[in-house]
């Protein structure tokens, strides 16, 4: 019973991180119609920036803020300096470009920050809460993770659904030409989209790093699982991404605990295949494809 509970709670915490990452993918998809594979190494770089700040003796929260701000800047810079150049060309170019960025950032981080495992502190307890005489696999930091993800999801829903800015971002992603005619500054919207997505990605990086070990490759599996979570939720819907992330985290945790940890990657792949085959729009896609 305790094992069941702990496996589930562990899965939920991990799922929250997948969800955070999926949110970043959803954000960039909705604001630029690009799937950004470089999201993982971007988040890794900003997490290392936080670690540098913390190692220099400053507080965790200063490092946390530094990571988020540098995430915002990194996203904007990459959009202006790199991705902008393939704008207007086939969409595949942008996707392949992000894969290139993936490798470049990875290697640069290894050169700058080193390739070793390093521990990353957590602002809250990393011991589980005690209920009666039992300890459950939910930590202060785990709660913080869940709350942070829900807050971000809420903010994204607000942004896209209830603000002019969100509408402009969606418009410029969807049809740049028409949006421009209607007076939307499409370039700025795309930069903003990248910056915000990178910010959310940085948050995901910090959430998975807290109380664990980091190295330049630590986000690599997250990009895959985060993508599966986003597809599960339909790539379009923030709520879908969160539900997708939690479902995936739970499933993988149970596969690892009760079937075998060697099957985790395979299970993720299987889920991805099933979703793409049976419900390509995602379980929670709010867009129904209308065939004309």
């Amino acid at each position, binding site marked *: 019973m305790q*094992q069941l509970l702990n496996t589930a709670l*562990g899965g939920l915490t991990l799922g929250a991180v997948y969800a955070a990452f999926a949110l970043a993918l959803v954000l960039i998809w909705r604001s630029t*119609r690009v799937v950004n594979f470089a999201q993982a190494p971007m988040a890794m770089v900003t997490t290392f920036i936080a670690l540098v700040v913390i190692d220099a003796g400053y507080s965790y929260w200063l490092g946390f803020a530094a990571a988020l701000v540098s995430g915002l800047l990194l996203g904007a810079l990459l959009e202006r300096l790199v991705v902008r150049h393939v704008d207007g060309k086939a969409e595949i170019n942008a996707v392949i470009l992000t894969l290139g960025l993936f490798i470049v950032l990875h290697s640069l981080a290894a050169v700058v920050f080193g390739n070793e495992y390093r521990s990353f502190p957590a602002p809250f307890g990393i011991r589980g809460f005690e209920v009666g005489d039992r300890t459950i696999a939910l930590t202060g930091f785990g709660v913080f993770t869940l709350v942070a993800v829900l807050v971000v999801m809420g903010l994204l829903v607000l942004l896209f659904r209830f603000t002019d800015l969100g509408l402009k971002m969606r418009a410029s992603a969807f049809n740049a030409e028409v949006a421009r005619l209607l007076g939307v500054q499409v370039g700025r919207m795309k930069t903003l989209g990248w910056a915000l997505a990178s910010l959310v990605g940085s948050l995901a990086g910090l959430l998975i790093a807290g109380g664990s*070990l980091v190295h330049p490759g630590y986000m690599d*599996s997250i990009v895959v699982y985060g993508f599966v979570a986003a597809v599960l939720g339909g790539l379009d819907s923030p709520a879908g991404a969160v539900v997708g992330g939690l479902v995936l985290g739970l499933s993988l945790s149970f596969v690892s*605990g009760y079937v075998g940890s060697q099957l985790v990657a395979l299970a*993720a792949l299987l889920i991805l295949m099933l979703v793409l085959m049976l419900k390509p729009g995602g379980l929670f896609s709010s867009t129904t494809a*209308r065939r004309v």
Partner: protein
Amino acid sequence: MTRRNTRSPRSAGLTGLAGLVATTLVLTACGAGGRDDDGDGDGNGGGASDVGVTEDSVTIGGHFPLTGVAAPGYSEIPTGAKAYFDYVNANGGIHGRKIEYIVKDDGYNPTNTSKVTDELLLQDEIFAMVGGLGTPTHSAVVDQLNAEGVPDLFVSSGSLMWGDDVEARPMTFGWQPDYESEGKIIGQYVAENMPDAKVGLFLQDDDLGEDAEKGVRQFLDEEIVAVERYTSGNTDVGPQIAGLQGAGADLVLSFNTPSYTALAQLVSMKLGYKPKWFVASIGSDPNLVGSLLSQFSEGAIKDGASALEGVMTSEYIPGTDQTDDPWVQLWQKVWDEHGAKGELTNYRIYGMSHAYAFVQALQGVGEDLTREGLVEWLEENGEGLEGPQLAPFRYSADSHMGIAGMRLAEIKGDTTEPLTPVLVTDIGDAEITEDSSGQADDAPPESGIPE
């Protein structure tokens, strides 16, 4: 303006493509990938071969994880070996030859190991592979090395494969005690001294875990209440530790790499799980694990050494804490004179120790250095070799197994306290006996170079 528009066919196609890319990434993460088919060479495995040997040099190579999940600790091994080779070279080399040591990074990925081994054999033309690290990695190249007649010495892994079948792999020699023997020794200790323990096994899901479990099960069976396996690369061991806890194991025998010792300790702390731990020698370096765990908040773990306080482990060479051991004094001198940056660590001592054995063999073979000659010399003289190892090698014409045994110890503060004398055994149902060779008490020659 409608709130949402229909999805265009183009973007739907893009989702599919992105899915494909993600699929590829998952597959890569699974570590799929075979060996290169080329690079078989023309198999000049004859006695006349002296590739890599000149009048004044001998070129050797090794593959190590300098990056990636297995790099912490293990990447220090070649720096230790290099320091010792530099020391030997600075003192004139062996039979007038300087040792050129080439280290390649395989990132603990077997596909890369094949690639870098091809480079070592074809571009660098090494005489021998020395200390190549890792069971999955070295498995990918062991047949190639044997087919081409390249001596494959002192593999840095405790798999049985490096020494139990001399006919199939005549050029390969093991070095550290095999995991099965280690499993037997800890198994017997637990059966005799902690008969009421509920034992859980925490195993890496490959030969390491399999061999160890085979050894442990010779002595423990009913006592084992849970067996959990983790996959190297998947850093979430929460479900596995929850499984051990759920089964009520109060003694966990874990056979894993150092990062996973740290991860397992972290998760146990999270779950409030406090069993007695035995961590096999390959995963128990207190300094390394401690440095990984040292930073966490709320003072849960104070500093390096205390992270593994009270953990049982095993030792087969003296470590940095034994500062009055003559071997450790030699290693300290070598590191001070020729080391790279950083302190002398147990991993560097490990590298120096196998470098020492290689220099010993070069010295013994004499001026006419051939690949066949080297292998023959080791088979004839290996068992009696002096060296830092606490128990003798098992080298003979029938076995290429490495060090025959170890002693169990408990980590106390910065050092360890022995729980048993040096025990020796062999694979299969060979008996476990106290070592009588006096190997643990020898000292290096004055010069620090084998004579």
